[in-house]
């Protein structure tokens, strides 16, 4: 039997995240983009823009499309679902999406493995 074990790593205090804005973090050599929306939800996706290859997703504009919380690539504006990492404009393009949680001490943690 294989256990699906997730290892959460501490990133920063939740207050460090500006509402409706992203920031990048480096976890075991993996670049992730963390977002905090204005309703308090926190999402973690890959920081590399799959279209351009540049590590810039954390600098995109946060918004919504219908009920979906989104981020737009700052380079060419393709829009991604923050929950799943799926690109809403280009079929078959995805960002990795990572589990993220806020501890009782208001610290953000992410699991990349």
């Amino acid at each position, binding site marked *: 039997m294989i256990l699906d074990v997730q290892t959460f790593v501490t990133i920063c205090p939740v207050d460090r995240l500006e509402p409706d804005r992203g920031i990048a973090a480096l976890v075991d050599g993996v670049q992730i983009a963390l977002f905090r929306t204005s309703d308090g939800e926190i999402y973690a996706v890959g920081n590399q823009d799959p279209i351009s*290859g540049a590590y810039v997703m954390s*600098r*995109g504009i946060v918004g919504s499309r219908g009920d979906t919380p989104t981020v737009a690539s*700052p380079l060419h504006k393709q829009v991604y679902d923050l929950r799943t990492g799926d690109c809403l404009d280009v079929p078959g393009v995805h960002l990795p999406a990572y589990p993220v949680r806020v501890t009782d001490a208001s610290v953000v943690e992410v699991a990349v493995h």
Partner: protein
Amino acid sequence: MKRLVIIGNGMVGQRLVEAVRARDTAAEWSVTVLAEESRPAYDRVKLSAFFDGSSAEDLNLHTPDSGVDLRLGEPALAVDTAARVVTTAAGTYAYDALVFATGSYPFVPPVPGKDLPGVFVYRTLDDLEAIRSYAAGRSVGAVIGGGLLGLEAANAMRLLGLSTHVIEFAPRLMPVQVDEAGGAMLRRYVEDLGVTVHTGTGTTALNAGDDGAVASLSLSDGAVVKADMVIVAAGIRPRDDLARAAGLPVGARGGILVDATCTTEVADVYAVGECAAVDGVCYGLVAPGYAQAEVVADRLLGGAATFPGADMSTKLKLLGVDVASFGDAHGATEGCLDVTFTDPATRVYAKLVLSDDAKTLLGGVLVGDATSYPTLRAGVGLELSAPPLTLLAPAGADVDPGAGLAALPGAAQVCSCNAVTKDQIVSAIHEQGCADVPAIKACTRAGTSCGSCVPMLKQLLTLEGVEQSKALCEHFDHSRQELFDIVRVRNIRSFSALLAEFGRGRGCDICKPAVASILASLNTGYVLEGEQASLQDTNDHFLANIQRNGTYSVVPRIPGGEITPEKLIVIGEVARDFNLYTKITGGQRIDMFGARVEQLPLIWKRLVDAGFESGHAYGKSLRTIKSCVGSTWCRYGVQDSVGLAVALELRYRGLRSPHKLKSAVSGCARECAEARSKDFGIIATDNGWNLYVGGNGGFRPRHADLFATDLTTEELVRTIDRFLIFYIRSADRLQRTAAWIESLDGGLDHLRDVIVHDSLGLCAELDEAMARHVTNYADEWAATLDDPDRLARFVSFVNAPDAPDPSISFTVERGQPVPVADDSAHRQPVLLGMPAVTSEGSLA
């Protein structure tokens, strides 16, 4: 390959070239064009714009085409239809098909003195240049001929500063197009402009003065009119001399005789445009010529098109007066009835010619207001769509403009210049998915020549159920202009407040930056304060321009391109210490590339300390005001272009706008700063400054239009202030000034009314808004460096603030670092780490 030789490169000849090249997909034809003039085809219809600030390039119709052998300044001298060759001074050209497109020449009545110095015709750009240089320093001019061309020539004289006489043999102005009452109304407009009109009288002689040049005209009514120069605009005649000499038959009143296929008596020899007499009739308008060019192009490629005859309707704006005539304007149909409308107060005259049962529209004349022209012209030959007086009522009356259009049959021509029918436009909308006017223009050519049918194209889109949405995005149903007014009037200070009351959802990358720009325009506060920070695109967020590999470029402001050696050295040292790629930009600044997010404050600290400030190269805002050297150093300069460019750049720095703004100041008419390719450009004159607006245009390059002349510096600054604020308030998201002016109802004239004549009573408010901007300006980088909270944003990683992004690496090209390109795996990446000078890097 078969050889096509075209004699003449006027508007119709050029259209023929384009039509053949577009259809000839199998490259059946080689095309040679023999042109008499030294410049390629230009828009002769808009010739008079040359005196209103347009240059020869603005009128150009020619696009380079390697498949066409265009031989400028090489007129055809003889045609041998038996040997099938054309001879020029340079050689002979054998042909498989030959087209005459030789146009017409101005008719000069055989009056004594017609060859005196100072007597001109009005036909080519060379003529206009000769007129312009002769007019300098002279005070009175006369035009022989009160038709369309004569009135254009009179306007040209006016614009050159001469008091002007018009002499017309017929009892009224524009006798071909308008009736007596219309001519009388037109005369009132023309006289109001200071032009003296003499009708019902001919010119019997042109008299020389002491210097041997023309000095006066003797008229048939005995009067003598003093004139320093004379333009003869008494009509045109087909240029058929070459064809006559080649033995081709000509019409009874001149013109190369052709049938409805535009073919002469000799096989494979055609004639099109003003030199052609189709079944004996010459057409002096460009639209029938275009149609003939299309017929010949079709025939050359194996088609069977014929020329159906042409609608001689015309709509003009002469000396600022709308004049239109369409269908049977003079009521030549037996038993026809006239319905007329005359309003001396608003100076509108309109006439409809109806069939004897008053049910069918046959034609009409409009003077003073021609807004109903497109619908009326398209309705000729059809049953009236409304009572005649309703149709005549000028703009403002309660009439549904779409009603007439809906009633039109599909075969009716909506665009007569390009012969595009209502059916073709409807099919472009439904079958080719054209959802707006530019798409219809690109697809059908409708609306691309005189533009008078553009309102009908909009109405057709609406009638066909294409909603012309102004909604910014899914979060707001409003246009940018509407949101601007809402934010201003309701004094809204945040995106969330605006969204809560007027929008839905959370916003997106379209509405957030647009609202950020609106808030910045109205509050002029620090753009990254509080919630406003979350609205900014990455460039504004980091006050730098993002590049393809996620690094940023840094562009300090260098007003007017003027910089001290000390500052140049600082830029060089900063770039060297941070290993930045440097390049001089197109706007006279120095761009430093390859800075990582966490380096930006370190770089800017050194630049701000050296006296630099933000260049706002990252924002939708004023970029640079370029300048030439100006009168300080240049031996030709007539004003201090550098001083003005510096002053204007400092005045408008930091101004947020719907699109980036660029400007330039040239110190003389040589235009070394290329001011006419800018959103607003200034060119020095002997008497002050000329202001041009609406240039640039982006992917559709455009020259700016002359907006005002000989302004003092104070007048100039006030006019630009108002222009900019009015643009910022009323333009659409990402709409450049060129497109914005085109979108204004009434275009440039309307803009002049609003910001010069204060027609909307807005000017005081516009002045105040600019004054507020100038007072409240603060450098964004200095403000950022002063605040630790703001600086905290500039980290590569929130959990490893000092770690540089490991994905960023550079290679070296021509001695400078550049991003490693995807296709350059064979190159050895060079990691260029932290700044070499770390001791100065501390901001703590």
